């Protein structure tokens, strides 16, 4: 385990080293790629005046709302699609069609409808994430083993109980993985939405920095988004371990 950690760390260190090498030696103009020191100084400045946390807070609020809204609707619709052929017949063509429409293309329309308000960010995240989530959650339910469903049938459970107590429970770990993937995508759509029309948030900060050619702000923004993504991803997998303790347990001998 320790060995694997070391290998993981060395990958990151290697990239950092390469970055330091090309910038400190002046191989690349600081205008195009700032040195790690410049980025750290920018971080300190933003921490001191509070903009960094304000941006994070703003962006986090938007992504959370967009994600929660999508999930609230995607979960029941996806589960029903995965368990009822009628629901599936109704939703599949609709969802299948819309999910190929690029969410980014909705931005002009979204601004027309919602201005540059937070609602517009929620909308873009929703468009980008909801339809994918529905299809993936439906698939999670469709791949539940027939044998456990039949156990429910032989125990006299009705259709609703089979969906609630067996299929949903059996699919829950993979649904959780789906949400984790979806969360990652939500970040992308959030930043895209903020780049185009916002007056706060991490995406806005990056866009604004471009005007003043302050690449260290851009790099800082990108790094912060990456770190936030990593932290939330770890949180997802940590919660999975708590919620699904029955997975990957070691065998005991009789």
């Amino acid at each position: 385990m320790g060995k694997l950690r070391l290998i993981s760390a060395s990958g990151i260190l290697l990239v950092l080293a390469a970055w330091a090498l090309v910038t400190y030696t002046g191989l690349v103009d600081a205008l195009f790629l700032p040195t790690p020191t410049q980025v750290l100084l920018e971080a300190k400045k933003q921490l001191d005046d509070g903009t960094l946390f304000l941006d994070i807070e703003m962006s986090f609020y938007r992504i959370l709302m967009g994600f929660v809204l999508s999930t609230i609707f995607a979960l029941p619709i996806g589960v029903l699609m995965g368990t009822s052929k009628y629901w599936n017949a109704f939703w599949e063509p609709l969802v299948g069609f819309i999910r190929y429409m690029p969410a980014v293309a909705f931005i002009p329309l979204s601004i027309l409808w919602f201005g540059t308000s937070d609602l517009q960010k929620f909308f873009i995240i929703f468009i980008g994430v909801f339809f994918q989530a529905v299809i993936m959650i439906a698939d999670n339910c469709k791949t539940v083993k027939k044998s456990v469903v039949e156990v429910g049938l032989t125990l006299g459970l009705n259709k609703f109980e089979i969906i609630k107590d067996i299929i949903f429970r059996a699919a829950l770990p993979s649904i959780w993985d789906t949400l984790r993937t979806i969360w990652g995508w939500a970040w992308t759509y959030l930043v895209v939405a903020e780049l185009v029309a916002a007056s706060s948030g991490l995406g806005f900060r990056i866009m604004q920095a471009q005007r003043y050619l302050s690449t260290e702000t851009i790099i800082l923004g990108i790094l912060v988004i990456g770190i936030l993504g990593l932290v939330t991803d770890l949180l997802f997998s940590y919660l999975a371990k708590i919620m699904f303790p029955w997975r990957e347990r070691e065998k005991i001998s009789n």
Partner: protein
Amino acid sequence: MAVSELVAQNVVKEFRDKKKTFLALDQIDLTVGEHEFVSLLGPSGCGKSTLLRLVAGLDKVSEGKILLRDKEISKPGRDRGVVFQQYSLLPWMHAWENVAFALKKDRTKTKQKKKELAYHFLELVGLKGFEDVYPSQMSGGMQQRVAIARALVYKPNLLLMDEPFGALDAQTRKEMQDLVLKVFTEARSSVLFVTHDVDEAIYLSDRVYVMSAKPGRMAKEINIELPKPRDWNVQLSENFLKYKREILVELQNQKKLK
């Protein structure tokens, strides 16, 4: 054998797809008496598991009737308990919760009572001390013990077992056979047991149906009149070997006909 728990009359099962029809079971007659242990024995592809699924109500007959205490079967129900071949436990539940889950529809019992019953039946199948273990932590044999406890706990009239020990090693299989003899004698339930193991069928059963394949038909019906309670010694007795010879000759003749 005065009362019949289960009667199947002229049961035909066809599977259809766009191109052709496949006849899986042809004109099957079958009875299981009260407290009787009946085995379906036959080569793979003879439709014995298909027949069991029809009785369980998981599939529908194409023709004919299956009656359970004079009532026609239309869907699965709690009057029958099923032990599947494998992977039938709910992996997110502890052993005792898997057993208690079978009592979910029983509104007459309290939660505490259900838990007590689950513990009791786990003890009966030799799993005392393993109540709080997840299926993923158990060996195949232990998992099947839990599945048996789950099928017993709600006291169905008829137990259906679909090659329940097919995936187990020889030693565990023998232990499970003795367990089955013990618990079913105590529970006095009627059992319909599917197997392809000749010794297992004779050892456990009061009556054995030998089936033939393509299409699945009843080839022979043999009453096993061996003394009870049985233990492994009986497998060396002359009568046991007589039954075994009879069945093996039948299975051999089926091959020659092909």
